[in-house]
């Protein structure tokens, strides 16, 4: 049956991830995506109102479920955080994209107003602007990944996964200093890439 094959694939990918096989993470995300998406959706639905979305709680719950499902006690929790961050990114961006579809048909690079970019915590920002920012960040992150995969991964963990610098360092197997520096540079690059300089 399909689910068994899927389980095996997950186990394989987890083993590869543990062994540091290149690409393991990328294979794992789509495999556990459905499950993570369900957890994420539930979390979002529950907590969207309070505007206090606990990404960390989401990641922990998703991790526990995966461990439970695969009985894979040896899964590295920190590494799994990176997987969950990727899943969170897809859930949020898919959601944003579904609602921006049709509104934005254009090709080419998407930019957003400076106001929207810097207004992360402002409650004033309209939903459509939030969606635009998320989609634009996602697309820019794709481009960053082709230039510098590690920087893109750091953004995924820090921004989409809500991980701390220390957790990100552990998840990606690099030093905290590297994460700090990558985060500064990636934010700068994204800022430059996303800002709408048109007068």
């Amino acid at each position, binding site marked *: 049956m399909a689910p068994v094959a899927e389980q095996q694939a997950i186990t394989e990918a987890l083993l590869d991830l543990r062994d540091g096989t290149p690409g393991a993470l990328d294979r794992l995300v789509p495999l556990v995506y459905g499950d993570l998406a369900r957890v994420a959706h539930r979390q*979002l639905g529950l907590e969207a109102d309070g505007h206090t979305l606990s990404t960390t709680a989401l990641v922990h719950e998703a991790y526990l479920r995966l461990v439970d499902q695969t009985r894979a006690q040896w899964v590295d929790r920190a590494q799994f955080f990176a997987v969950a961050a990727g899943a969170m990114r897809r859930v949020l961006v898919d959601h944003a994209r579904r609602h921006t579809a049709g509104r934005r048909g254009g090709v080419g690079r998407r930019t957003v107003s400076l106001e929207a970019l810097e207004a992360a915590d402002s409650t004033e920002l309209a939903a459509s602007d939030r969606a635009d920012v998320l989609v634009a960040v996602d697309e820019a992150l794709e481009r960053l990944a082709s230039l510098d995969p590690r920087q893109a991964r750091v953004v995924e963990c820090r921004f989409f996964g809500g991980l701390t610098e220390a957790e990100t360092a552990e998840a990606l197997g690099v030093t905290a200093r590297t994460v700090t520096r990558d985060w500064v540079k990636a934010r700068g690059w994204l800022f430059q890439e996303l800002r709408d300089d048109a007068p």
Partner: protein
Amino acid sequence: MTPPEGKPHVAPVDAGSESASSSGRWREIQRVVDGALDLPPAERDAFVSEACGPDVALSVQARQLLEACERAAGSDGFLAGPAGAFAAPMIAEFAVQDAAAAAERRAALADALQVALSERYVVERELGRGGMATVYLARDIRHERAVAVKVLSRDVVAPGGAARFLQEIRTAAGLTHPHVLGVHDSGDANGLLYYVMPYVEGETLRTRLSREGALPLAEAVRLVRELADALAYAHAHGIVHRDLKPENVLLAGGHAVVADFGIAKALAAATQDGTPRGGLTSAGVALGTPAYMAPEQAVGDASTDHRADLYALGVVAYEALAGAHPFGARAPQALVVAHLTEPPPPLGARRPDAPRSLVALVTQLLEKDPAARPQSADAVLRALDGATAAPAGTPSRRRGLRLATAATLLAAASVGGYAVWKRAPGPPRGVADTAPAPAAIRTVAVLPFVNTGGAAADDFFSDGMTDELAHALARLPGLRLAGRTSSYAFKGKAIAAQEIGRVLDVGALVGGTVRRASDRLRITAQLVSTADGKVLWDSSYQSGVGDVFAVQDEVTRAVVAALTPALGDRRGAAGTPSAPPGGRGTTDAEAYELYLKGRYYFLERGAANIARSIAHYRLAVARDPAFARAHAGLALAYGVLPTYVVDPTDSAAALITASARRALALDSTLADAHIGLAMALVHQLRFADSEARYRAALALEPSNVMGHHGLGVLLLSAGRTDEAVAELRRATQLDPLAKSGGSAFAMALVHARRFPEAEAAARRVLALDSTFPLAIWDLGFAQLFGGQPDSAVRTLERGARMHPDAPGQRSLLLFAYAAAGRWADAERVRAQLNRPGGDPSGGVMAAFAELVFGDREPLVRLLTTEVGQRRWRMFGCNPLLDPLWADARFVTAMRRLAVKACPLARPWPLPPRAGG
């Protein structure tokens, strides 16, 4: 790998240009930027120049990135929080938008159906909705009877599925049995597949179980017998139900009627893409309901037969007896697994009073292997005859069922066993589509109905619908209704129910949409829990525009009925929930429309709107002189008029009184009319009579914000400060976003000399509207007497700049200047007031100015005359009047007005006018 596109509008060289995409170039830029970031900001530029040497392009790219890094790092907002927090408001709003779009689609479906069926049926409203179909209440024109029309969603019908669906429906339509809901009619209406059933008044077994849990033994047994009877009949005609569940069992007059016989198969036929398959198919599996699905059906066994219905009967019987599903609340997949592998928990333990043979029968129905179950519904009926005759502990002795169950129930109740199983968990979550009745909704806000018709001119009508509903709900005892201003603050805003619930402190929201097309009216209404944003109840209605009253009544009745169970033990007090409380008061649709427009303008406030309001109300009473509510509305409009228009003749009181008395003669239960009279009595300085009228109004409508507000201000003026604080606090609780109520509350706290609280209350209002004059006044007042004269000056000067024409603030500013020792400024204001036409208050302000400068005589003289008293009217413990309490004439005058002397009054609230 696609190179990132350049930014065409950025002038010199671009960091994202083609050359940078080569990893070598990227690494070079990174190296330079890394090096620069290691240095203090001041040294970075020089470092970049040096590191890049002659490579100008590299230095430009590195500088650009570096600058962006600094900019991004210095920004608090950019990629600051976790994305989830950033997205949360978006998700909430999209959810609202999705809901609105879904409502629109549903409305369009109802319209399309009505058009297609117009010859035979009038579609009245939606009764329910599932994943695949929607059920409407309709009137069968030819036979003058109510029917339920079930329509398949267009997107579930596969090509060629329509013919197969109708074929299957025709087979099911052959059934006629007292416990089977027949099919009257079916067809394909412009691509909409539908079938028509009799409309059965009553509830489903699901609703009953959700509300009450386990059923009394006798009733449970009768129910199982009736279901078995229905199954026996249908099976004998070769029809298997395939989806028996409490949602499909209607309770009509206490008896079970099974709906949707053979529909599961018809749906399967409609949804399959034409591949002929024997027995059940994967699509068929998806169509069943996991919670009631026999193991063989769950795995799509082709030999699945009528015995699957017997398994479902076993689950329903178990649930009716135990008050809970045998496998509890689980995800659909987990339920399927449980049906396949888990034995149900022993029923005897969960329902100790059930006869052993009954427990044995239900257990046998739940056998995994069809061959181990009773082999036919007839066999179940025979077993029931035996089972019910043998209650627990008395095997094999025939005895009357009624006697046995009564005795066992009594025994159970006396030892507390009743309570134990009564409290057993409700139906499995995720199985029931209908949410259980809300536990305790005693507080509700009626949000403005959204006018989806597009014509802004119809806003008065959707608002009228809203107010009509609020008016009816305001009269329900035990229900607290949020104030109109606060509820309307959410008009046109996409805010999550939970958030609104938090702001307004209510348990549920009522809202909906109104669409007036040329000759049709469509209203949707919803009741939403603020605990979790779940829709507790919703429905839609339509009619011709001429039937507006009937539709309004129906909506009101339905909302009241939906809320009434939630009022728990107050249900009896609420009277019959089916009757809409509070009459409309006219049968003339045009007069009613004029009334709604009058009310709309009244609530918009402002001088011009009040004048328009009065004009419309007058037209309304001209058309229908017996229209009590229009008279009451007129009284209120006259009542607030002096706030906006200077009325030197003081004719308002007479106008208010005439309209209010007219209204009360027609309908003595109109709270608004009592409030109008109370306002007129305040104008006449008859405080005690006015209080009685306010209290009468509040007895009729305990949540009437205008009543609490008016009474509070009256008590304040009468010197009953503590009562006033309590009353105005109540008004602000009911209507937390109403600025005038919040300002009056702040003023009451000033009177109570609770200045820090008063300041906080004023600031709450200013947070809603930083320019609201009354709140600026309150804030300045609180600062002035709370020992912050300099802050008071700043506040009141700001107020005077914003509202140069508001007279009250000018004299208060004069007090503030005096308190701050700025006597020159105080002199300037006094001079302005003494200029001809400089005091719009008719001498009151000028008299206060003299008080500030140490001469209380002009003010005492003014406030001991009736004319002066009417112009001022705010007596009581007003700190501005403190020095007057030392004057015997003033004390006597106040006593005559029944104003209590102020125990908090200080001899002179301001520092003496020093030499400088």
